[in-house]
């Protein structure tokens, strides 16, 4: 890279008094005085959350209302701070979803341990656990900060996918592979 000579013109007399520069600066700051502020007035105004934001982890249901989680415990084992605790359980024979393998009897995420890394979402084979856009969570007691299964499904909502993996499996067993 060749050396570039920067021409530094000597300051004129007026410039050396610094008054023109000062007045120019005053004009600039005065314009800022008249502009609206750029501050986001939280909590009245909320910030925009981007699409892949890693907020509080939640459990989701599928469009038929079935809980997607099958308590495979992969998220429990991958979670770095061991925030997730799952008790797997059987689905009763007379339930609509009896063809699904398992369902969690208890599913606790301790939000005081969660580091919002998103590894649980990455590893879940059922697309059941999703980190959504809640970014501020607070409570008065440690017990309050543990999200149990009801709270997780409440925060999660419904995932609008069309996989219906277990239903298709059941149909394939009953009627043969009908693609």
């Amino acid at each position, binding site marked *: 890279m060749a050396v570039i000579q920067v021409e530094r013109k000597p300051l004129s007399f007026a410039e050396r008094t610094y008054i023109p520069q*000062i007045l120019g600066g005053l004009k600039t*700051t005065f314009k800022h005085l008249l502009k609206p502020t*750029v*501050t986001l007035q939280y909590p009245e105004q909320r910030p925009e959350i981007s699409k892949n934001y890693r907020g509080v982890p939640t459990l989701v249901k599928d469009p038929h209302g079935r809980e997607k989680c099958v308590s495979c415990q992969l998220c429990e084992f991958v979670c770095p701070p061991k925030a997730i605790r799952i008790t797997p359980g059987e689905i009763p024979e007379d339930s609509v979803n009896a063809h699904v393998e398992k369902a969690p009897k208890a599913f606790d995420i301790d939000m005081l341990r969660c580091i919002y890394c998103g590894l649980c979402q990455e590893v879940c084979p059922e697309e059941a656990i999703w980190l959504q856009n809640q970014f501020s969570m607070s409570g008065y007691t440690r017990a309050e900060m543990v999200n149990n299964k009801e709270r997780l499904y409440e925060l999660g909502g419904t995932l609008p996918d069309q996989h219906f993996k277990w239903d298709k499996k059941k149909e394939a067993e009953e009627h043969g592979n009908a693609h």
Partner: protein
Amino acid sequence: MFDLYFDLPLWIRLTLQGLAVILVLFPLAAACSMAERKISAWLQGRPGPNRTIAPILAWVPGIGILQRLGVFQLAADGGKFTFKEDPVPGHVNKFYFILAPILAMVPALSTVVVVPFGAYFATVNGQTILTPIVLANVDVGLLAVFAVSSLGVYAVILAGWASNSKYPFLGGVRASAQLISYELSMTLSVLPVFLWINAPGGEGTLSLFRVVELQSGTGLAWDSVWYIFYFPLSAFIFLVALFAETNRQPFDMPESESDLVGGFHTEYGAFKWSLFFVAEYCHMIVGSAVFILLFFGGWNPLPGLPLGTLVNWLAGFAPWVAHPLVMGLIGIGIFLGKICTSIFVFMWVRWTLPRFRYDQVMNIGWKKLLPLSIGNLIFYTLGIALLAYLKK
């Protein structure tokens, strides 16, 4: 009722006047700190303190406007400074440590004694003469202001020395050097104004009231033009020296937070620190008051439209306006408005300009401003002598 006031014995009147001035000056200085936060915030594109509210007042309709203006933040800050733990570090010289903020407040508040705020028409022996509203109408007006405000240097030196620590010491040394350097230019720069008002034939005076009186002409006359137009260079030098004397950016080396932590007030805590700051804002207010009296016509609304003319015109619509009390209040109101504008300019410049380095500050004070003010004085002396000679 007004005459009742004049029947009171002199010492009661003087006490009441003094109390009135303190009760206006102190909240004004405190409001200055609040205005500083809001104005600096707006200049930087943010809202400033806008959520503080006293919960018992939250139901009052329209209180939201005051809340967003940050008025209650002032009360919150005042309460915090009063009730917070006031630390006196173990390694300081206790007597001087506690003396320094008191010594800072005293000159700042005392200079207000000779500064006139307004005027009214008093009827004395059948003549209506313009009388100033001032705590002490002394003839040495300006000299008293400069003399007393120079004592503020002691407080800064004392604070830096008593704190027994590196950064306050450096801050104190820098502050004292800066303050005494710019005092020379400040006093020399306003001498042309006093040469002008002490025209031969009149009695010599340094009174600030006389300066404003001579800017109170009506219409197009030699004495209706404000002195900023006659003495622009003097005004400029005085303004720069005023910035340096009140330790305001771009000359706030003594308090530069980025390299001295807090300068001379590093070791000071809640109440003592607030005393330093109220003293600084009082200096700013009194300095602006002197600047306005000398160069911007004091309490006259416009050049060519003095207070007396305005009041007489308004009295055409409402006769009670001509009452001396109302006229005095109008004059004070106009004067306070000008002071508020001046304080806004102080803050505007603070958040526009970067700080001068210490050697640049000394350079400007001694090598640029002092020769300029001496040259200015010589120029105006010769000019006024020439004018006086030509008039004969």
